């Protein structure tokens, strides 16, 4: 039974299909109007990045989850294709973020799998997070009703993205070894501080993600569903308060209820998104043949609509399916983990990514009110790419330690069988 889990998954054909998809798309983009050689470079380098990661990292760490790795890199690839089609300059910057993200992912993987001194870092992570959020409030830039950017001149960062990762780490650390309410005061305070500061930034998408991630991790750790439920009730009450407090929340809800009231004004974004999705139909307009650039911020918040317009709803559904596989494998890791620290890490990372995916996809198809969060790994944005990659690193780190533990146990079992009892 153990040997089955240890067998390396057969991923070659998936890898081949995805490589071909990426290469073809970039080659198509090269011949879009006139000839452009940059996409040809991408047609080689992006698939290469994918294959290299799977081969090299797979060899270095045989217990990395290659499905997760392939899925995430494919998502990044689809994002790059769409970005290049929308705005070549942004795509090249995104490629840089992607490369940095892969390195950040490897670093995080290593830390989670090997590093044993997390407790020493705990206070530092907490203080740094609160400081960054506080700084954003002081010198932040406003964008779409939310004040959540810090402009460093050469690049802007969105601290709330990194705070999500910090929250997942701290929650897992504290909840895995401390159980009484009193012991949980520090991490509780930290969570409240983060959520509160993000509320003050009016970045309500991030608030929702952080809050619900905290609740989920807390519930998984303590099985205290009463308190988790109470938290949900609080969230509902809090949302009502925020609804009345913030104008832009009220507008968002009103737009969601009936965007057709103001199709040229406040409802413009969402209506254009729906039109864009509907234009593609099942199989899409074809890469470069649609007009997804009509939708405002198609490169980040609305990239899912752009993908649906040109690649079709079927590809949109496949993307959702890929996310689901990613999240399901993450949670299966949590279920196999031997230490509660690792289990909670995986639960936290998956919950945060899953909520974010659900909120933005549900938002652009007008299923729920739109919250301006990014589609993990696909949307344009350095902070978003880095934080998503760090989450991936957490999952891979858990995967490695789970795999190694399984293997050593399996070896011990084998040894016991081989040595005949005297």
């Amino acid at each position, binding site marked *: 039974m153990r040997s089955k889990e240890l067998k390396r998954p057969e991923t070659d054909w998936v890898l081949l299909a995805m490589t071909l998809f990426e290469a073809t798309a970039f080659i198509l983009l090269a011949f879009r109007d006139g000839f452009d050689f940059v996409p040809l470079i991408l047609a080689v380098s992006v698939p290469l990045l994918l294959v290299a990661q799977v081969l090299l990292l797979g060899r270095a760490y045989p217990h990395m989850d290659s499905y997760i790795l392939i899925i995430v890199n494919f998502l990044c690839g689809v994002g790059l294709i769409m970005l290049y089609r929308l705005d070549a300059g942004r795509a090249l910057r995104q490629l840089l973020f992607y490369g940095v993200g892969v390195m950040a992912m490897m670093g995080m993987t290593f830390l989670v799998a090997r590093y044993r001194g997390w407790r020493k870092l705990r206070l530092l992570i907490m203080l740094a997070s609160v400081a960054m959020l506080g700084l954003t409030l002081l010198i932040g830039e406003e964008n779409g009703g939310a004040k959540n950017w810090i402009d460093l001149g050469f690049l802007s960062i969105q601290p709330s993205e990194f705070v999500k990762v910090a929250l997942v780490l701290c929650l897992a650390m504290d909840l895995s070894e401390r159980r009484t309410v009193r012991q949980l005061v520090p991490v509780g305070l930290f969570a409240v501080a983060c959520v509160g500061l993000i509320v003050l930034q009016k970045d309500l998408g991030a608030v929702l993600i952080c809050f619900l991630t905290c609740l989920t991790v807390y519930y998984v750790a303590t099985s205290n569903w009463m308190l988790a439920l109470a938290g949900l009730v609080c969230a509902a009450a809090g949302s009502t308060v925020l609804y009345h407090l913030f104008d832009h929340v009220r507008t968002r809800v009103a737009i969601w209820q009936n965007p057709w009231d103001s199709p040229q004004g406040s409802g413009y974004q969402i209506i254009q998104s729906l039109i864009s999705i*509907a*234009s593609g139909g099942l199989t899409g307009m074809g890469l470069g043949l649609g007009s997804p650039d009509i939708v405002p911020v198609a490169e980040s918040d609305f990239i899912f609509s752009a993908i649906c317009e040109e690649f079709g*709803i079927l590809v949109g*559904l496949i993307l959702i399916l890929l996310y689901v596989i990613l999240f399901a494998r993450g949670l299966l890791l949590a279920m196999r983990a031997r230490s509660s620290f690792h289990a909670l890490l*995986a639960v936290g990372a998956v919950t945060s990514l899953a909520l974010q995916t*659900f909120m933005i996809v549900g938002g652009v198809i007008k299923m729920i009110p739109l919250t301006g969060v990014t589609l993990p790994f696909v949307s344009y944005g350095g902070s978003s790419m880095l934080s998503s990659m760090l989450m991936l690193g957490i999952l891979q780190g858990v995967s490695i330690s789970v795999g190694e533990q399984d293997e050593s146990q399996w070896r011990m079992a084998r040894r016991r069988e081989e040595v005949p009892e005297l």
Partner: protein
Amino acid sequence: MKQMKKNARAVLCALLALFTVLSGYFFYAVYANGNRWFTTPYNTRLRAARGSVIAGDILDRNGTVLVTSSADGSREYPTDRDTRKALSHVLGDVEGNVPTGAETFLAADLLGFNASLADRATQIFAEKRRGSDVQLTIDADLQTYIAEQFPEDYNGAVALLNYKTGEVLALYSKPEYDAKHPEDYEDAEDQTGVLLNRATQGRYAPGSVFKIVTLACALENLPGVQDRVFTCEGTYAVTEEMDLIDTDGEGHGTLTLEEAFTKSCNIVFGQLALELGEEKLRATAERMGFNGNFLFEDLIVYESIFPKAIEDEGELAWTGVGQGNLMAVPMHLAMIAGAVGNGGTMVEPQLVLSVRGAAGGVHSRLSTRTALQCMSASTAGIIESYMIETVESGTATRAAVDGHTIAGKTGTAQVNSSGGRYSPHSWYVGCCAEEETPYAIAVVVENGGSGGSAAARLAGRVMERAIETVQPAGR
């Protein structure tokens, strides 16, 4: 640890459920609303596409070309002014002035957005791509005939469909529009009134044609109602302020349910509504599509409205005879009449017969689908026999067609406006109860007086013409 594993599994289940709902909603929303989103006037893609794509032709069911693209890509509507105006609301225009016409609602086909891979492949090297040709179910000659026969100086609408296949044969709205001369309408007092397709979007008080619904409700909820004997004295005091009055107020004496229907007796039907109650009447109306949300593939039909709340007994009685706050759309009433002829099954109306791609392949788009199961077959049978009797000896004798079995019901809908009391709307709905010519019709002549005269006479002529001239699809 074990508990944590269990909790993680719970989280997994929750996430799976969440994303299943997301995918399901996504697919359903695009499937149900996709074309409606795509064809809104806010889709700038359509405007852009008109510059780069030669839109396909629109043909009628007999293959007559109604709209075509000239060499420079501009749209050419029928040259004959009367034909062009008669068809104005069905065809619409490229500007989207008539927001629900074929030019807009079928733009995805006409501009090749739905083109198959083969169609796209043949046009890789074309300077300008060509969209697909669309053949409508409409009979242009019949529609022009309706325009000629429609009472002069009156507005209104006619909807005619095949109630077995769903093919819409005519969809006429007056006042007419002229897509070739939009400037004629710029100064019109009530511009939207001209641009509205009254057959599919006009909401009118239905008057006595609604008695079909009340009758269906009574037949399905009051056992033995057919054998009862009613008395009509011309007036009936429902509440202290509200009297139910018959059209002429003289009273029909004693009569059976069938006689009450054929003579369109308000007293009997008002009392039936009181006996049935608001809930049952609303339930029957909603089963027939009132308050529903029609999401038909080929055309937009607004929903008819049965009031959400009825204030008192007086309003309830008046609702039972088609007054009160009821609102009905002509096309929808034609569909209800069709359901009566079709054993209680309402089929989805269809406007597109076939689509011919740029590569020449013709794809039939006619696929008969049930929209609603309105009533049991036995109820439909009884209503149909009453409606046939209405045409033979009741209020709708003017709708008769020699040599054919016609079922019908007239209506005279009182309209009160702030400006005073106008002549009532003249209504007729009915169907031809024959296998070969299963046509259902709804006619409304605004302020046309009694339903038995203006609307029934027009309906009779149109039905006769349809029976004689309409050719089956795929001839």
